[in-house]
């Protein structure tokens, strides 16, 4: 019973990381209609920045996290400006390949800067772990912080998109790009803003991910990136609550598959769940159902 509860909490924690990454995918997809495959590598950059500021500059963890968020936000804006903006009117596959080019670029730039040997990431959360039920259930502080961070981000983002002017214009652009422009919304600025928020969140996700799983390599971001992308699609790509739901579901399924079915086959199970969900609901759990028009 305790075991089940522990697995559930671990699953929600891992799922929270996926959810934060998935938010970046889903927001960019909703607004720019592109699959940003470089997003997973922004996570890796964020984790490296935090690692460097903590180990080389001896800065406190909080400063490291803030620094990582700032660098990734700027990186997101720069990538969008240089690589994606010239391709606004290009076919979607061309943008996809460019995103893959950016992903290669980030990975290899990281390989040159930080070398291929794995770094051991020291957790940014150095609080004692929580003990419940007379010590029968121990939850690490990272797990709690991750879940809390996820809740805070979710609330902040919902308020942002619902209440602020920028957030509303984001929703307008994702609904209808052309009409939004006619209403006087600066579409380019909105897209830049989306990339900035998505990349900033990616930095937080990277730090949390590496605090829980402390090996840091130039390829660290790719697998969580693919999983988070899967989570975004599972929840319905383009939908913010969908990304949350998809991320947490995916994390729980992955941990449960590892604990009760097979460690080696957990990835296959996760992807099989995605396929089954998409066959039943072709646009994901919370995605908009698109009517076919002739």
């Amino acid at each position, binding site marked *: 019973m305790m075991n089940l509860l522990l697995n559930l909490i671990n699953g929600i924690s891992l799922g929270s990381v996926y959810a934060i990454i998935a938010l970046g995918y889903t927001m960019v997809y909703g607004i720019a209609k592109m699959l940003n495959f470089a997003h997973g590598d922004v996570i890796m950059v964020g984790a490296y920045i935090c690692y460097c500021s903590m180990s080389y500059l001896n800065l406190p963890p909080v400063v490291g996290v803030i620094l990582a968020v700032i660098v990734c936000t700027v990186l997101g804006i720069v990538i969008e400006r240089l690589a994606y903006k010239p391709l606004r009117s290009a076919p979607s596959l061309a943008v*996809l390949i460019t995103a893959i080019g950016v992903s290669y670029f980030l990975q290899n730039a990281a390989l040159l800067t930080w070398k291929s040997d794995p770094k051991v990431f020291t957790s940014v959360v150095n609080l004692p772990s929580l003990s419940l039920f007379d010590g029968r259930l121990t939850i690490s502080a990272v797990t709690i912080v991750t879940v809390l961070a996820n809740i805070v981000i979710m609330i902040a983002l919902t308020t942002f998109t619902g209440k602020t002017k920028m957030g509303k214009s984001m929703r307008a652009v994702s609904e209808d790009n052309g009409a939004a422009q006619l209403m006087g919304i600066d579409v380019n600025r909105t897209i830049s803003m989306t990339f900035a928020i998505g990349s900033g969140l990616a930095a937080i996700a990277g730090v949390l991910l590496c605090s829980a799983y402390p090996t840091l390599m130039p390829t660290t971001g790719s697998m969580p990136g693919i999983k988070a992308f899967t989570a975004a699609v599972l929840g319905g790509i383009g939908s913010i609550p969908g990304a949350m739901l998809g991320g947490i579901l995916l994390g729980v399924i992955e941990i449960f598959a590892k604990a009760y079915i097979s460690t080696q086959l957990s990835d296959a199970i996760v992807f099989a769940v995605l396929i089954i969900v998409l066959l039943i609901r072709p646009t994901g759990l919370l995605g908009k159902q698109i009517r076919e028009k002739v």
Partner: protein
Amino acid sequence: MKKMKKSTRSKLITYAMVAAGFVVMQGLSAAGMVSNSLAGQLVPICVYISMAISLNLVVGILGDLSLGHAGFMSVGAFTGVVVSMSLRFLPPLARLVLAIGIGGVFAGIAGVIVGIPVLRLQGDYLAIVTLAFGEIIKNLLNNLYVGVDKKGLHFSMKDAQALRLKEGTVLINGPMGAPGIEKLSTFLAGFVLVLIVLTVTLNLVESRTGRAIMAIRDNRIAAESVGINVTKYKLMAFVTSAGLAGMAGALYALNYSSVLPKKFDFNTSILILVFVVLGGMGNIRGSIIAATVLTILPEALRSLNDYRMLIYAIVLILVMLVTNNPFLKTNWVMLKKRMAFWRKNKANGGAADGQKK
């Protein structure tokens, strides 16, 4: 030459190009002018050309984005290894042919299993499901153990001990892949495979089936309304593509002494997609050129050591930016129109001159 249909001529040019490439490379290597690193790339180039053509069938001709093509390649690769290593009493050529053939068949079967659910979806959702299937195939192969002894083949999904071999050899050892493969692939075999893939694809595209497939790509609803069975033709293109990828995979695996399941991951699928997009969607000749150039490019940049993949990435981004630049694009179209106009004028002028006489 003039009476030939335009499509036939274009087809002949493609075949001639491949044949010329083969003859030149054979000549150069006979003269000892091919460096070791390039000689090692000859079979992979043939493999990647075949992969690019087969993926182009799905992405360019059928119009569905597939991100899991390496999965079919790996099915072909490991089937090929098992076939060639368990039939050791046959001559090498027969083993190679059987390995490639059976590898293609198994990848085709995988194509049917994947294709039936996948092709019901559309757009980006279809792409993500092919990605998911690619990962599932990789994950399953990572846990597959196959051994052979006098009694025949043994399979297990647990570990090598569970095979209970009696004086046999382990052919596929889970995450360690297939160790001790006998190298059977040759450049000639690669060339023949490219020709087979090319023939199958070009003939398919020009047939009634191919026209139906392209009609589905251009407008699915219109195609359906004129009585084209969408599922059937989509599946046909998908399975053909998977089978061809499997054949290429078998050739690839038998070119090395060992092969890991990890090799056929998402990055490999993407690599092949890059060939297709850079070569031009639906353009078979473009796929061949892009696959060749982009396989040689990282090798040619080897002197730059660590910077080569960085440069590769930058080249990739720049090519996409330049080829999709609206300004250059309109100017290119203008230039092309002017050329056509000029040529037409000249031809008309020539004909008028002829009549005067």
